[in-house]
């Protein structure tokens, strides 16, 4: 019997066992988190947000066997959400030209998507703790106090941790932007 006190791992284990109530519990536990990524992180238009939300959980349902650690369900769902949102952005921008006011709008939109994909790829190279804190602050727009409480961080350290993680993200992105020389080394 799942309750509000059940761990993420217990809920996922019940999902794996085919318990439909467990799936409802999983969605209830993560719906705000995932909707936060959809709406705040990727600014998916409201008319698309519900579809994207459903698509994410359909993927999760089909791919649950790919999840290696049941306790890591949150970051795993967030990863599916990021890819689904990016895919939706690409689809919208690739729509026929008559839906685009100016050709340059489509180019600018595609540049944005490519930049978002670069950032997403760079994020994947950061330690999990960095990914988590950046996602909570910038995508979910959580206040410092909530981040400190939920990640068990000492009060007064969150802003500086975010800064350090951003510096690492910037270094990762700059490394990606370096041109590759004839020797295969970045300049």
């Amino acid at each position, binding site marked *: 019997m799942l309750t509000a006190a059940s761990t993420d791992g217990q809920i996922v284990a019940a999902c794996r066992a085919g318990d439909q109530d467990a799936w409802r519990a999983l969605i209830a536990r993560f719906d705000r988190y995932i909707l936060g990524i959809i709406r705040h992180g990727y600014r998916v238009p409201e008319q698309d947000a519900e579809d994207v939300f459903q698509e994410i959980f359909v993927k999760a349902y089909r791919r649950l066997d790919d999840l290696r650690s049941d306790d890591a369900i949150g970051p795993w769902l967030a990863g599916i959400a990021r890819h689904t949102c990016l895919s939706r952005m690409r689809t919208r921008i690739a729509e026929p030209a008559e839906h685009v006011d100016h050709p340059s709008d489509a180019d600018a939109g595609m540049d944005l998507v490519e930049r978002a994909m670069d950032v997403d790829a760079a994020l994947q190279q950061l330690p999990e703790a960095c990914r988590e804190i950046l996602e909570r*602050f*910038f995508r979910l*727009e959580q*206040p*410092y*106090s909530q981040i400190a409480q939920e990640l068990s961080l000492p*009060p*007064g350290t*969150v*802003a*500086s941790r*975010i*800064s*350090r993680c*951003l*510096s690492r993200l*910037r270094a990762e992105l700059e490394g990606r932007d370096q041109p590759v020389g004839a020797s295969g080394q970045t300049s």
Partner: protein
Amino acid sequence: MDIEQLIERLAGSDPTPAAGTAAATVLDMALALSTKAVIRTSDAGPTGALAAQIAALRRRLATDGERVELTYAAALAALATGERVSIGEHVGEALDALLVLAGSATDVAELARTVADSCAPVARPDAASAAILAAAAAAVAAHLAGLNLLAPIDERAARARSLATAAQASAAAALAP
């Protein structure tokens, strides 16, 4: 609305804009001072990265003050109708908006303290002042929440007070030598 117009309207007889907008404007100024401190530090590393957090908080703050005023006006209108359900709903929304403003102010105070801790000495007074301004805005939000009709029975008013206390602690830390 530019600052002159805002001050004119704050001094006017209309119920809004009022303290909520004033507090949000003060928070914007606190973020501007924090930005100045970061820029004057000229650090491309962690201190420079604080600018991204300032920008993020500024985006969140953009609607906080207006939301306080709109929900306050809606609560006043509901009170005028005397309809209990409508009053409960709108007074609750007004309290929620104040709690959000208090939360933003607390984050701004904490960020300003972090800037004060890491910025160049020449920029520290601006960052510390930003923390003080943000703590004042948090106190305003908590004060207004305490006046809300639901305050005696709603834990959100107590949470707003708690946030204001946290903001005050950040400001005190920013002033510490």
